[in-house]
């Protein structure tokens, strides 16, 4: 397990979702060592579960962020979390969510709920036919 202090997270999803998210965080903050990407590409359900479990154990992760609630990475992560005390799964991951979690206070469920709220607040719709912003 990693000796790193502070939040540690797996980012898992379809295709290169995890790799891209980790790369974006690295470009914004200069440090994405608290993140590990896992892809479900080419793996069966058991393979995805093994990949997430191995990454979570190696990093000592507090959370697995995934893309779709119905995605195979979410299903696999929930199976891993069931057997891993303290490990949380958060779906619908976004850049604002990851940044808030990594840069904010805490590592547990309260910190994740705050990050999820920040991610929801970051969804804005600009423009439209009337030229008005819709929030």
């Amino acid at each position: 397990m990693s000796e790193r202090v502070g939040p540690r997270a797996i980012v898992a999803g379809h295709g290169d979702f995890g790799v891209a998210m980790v790369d974006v965080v690295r470009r914004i903050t200069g440090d994405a060592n608290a993140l590990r990407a896992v892809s479900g590409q080419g793996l069966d359900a058991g393979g995805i579960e093994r990949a997430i479990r191995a990454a979570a154990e190696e990093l000592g992760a507090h959370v697995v962020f995934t893309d779709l609630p119905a995605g195979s990475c979410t299903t696999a992560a929930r199976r891993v979390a069931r057997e891993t005390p303290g490990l949380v799964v958060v779906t619908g991951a976004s850049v604002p969510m990851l940044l808030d979690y990594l840069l904010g206070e805490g590592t547990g469920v309260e910190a994740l709920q705050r990050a999820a709220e920040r991610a929801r607040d970051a969804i804005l719709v600009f423009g439209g036919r009337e030229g008005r912003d819709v929030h």
Partner: protein
Amino acid sequence: MSIEVYRIDDRLVHGQVVVGWGQPLALRFIVLVDDAIVQSDWERELYRMGTPPEMDLFVESVESCALRLPEFDSRADPGLLVAPDVATMARLCSMAPGIRQVNVGGIHHVAGRVPRLPYVFLSPAEEAGLRALAATGVAISAQDVPGADAVPLDDLLARDGS
């Protein structure tokens, strides 16, 4: 409308199913056929929570599914049936001869399987199972998402997906 797709997919209910097929076909129910999952409350709930609220999810054993197929087929809305492997689908087809088409949507790599497509890896036993199923008159093709080309069984088995 009834069941529009009979699919073999080892990931069962996941993004390609609920979004890739679910959106264009306006699916309103999914039948998950798996003799192990049906026995676990936790596993059933796991898949139920991953299913969009506008879709019903039915988790069945092969036997119970065969009995309920007329009920599913009498529904007015479109549905998709998914089984985890060739053997499960073959057993279902033997008990429910009305199934005439099977979609191979995802059989991923494990030891002993060879690649046929990026999302289809088959062992010799699975290939024999698919050929046997086709010999009963079931049309079999591989297609992961609706926008992809369907690959008929003979073409699939002739491919080297490596």
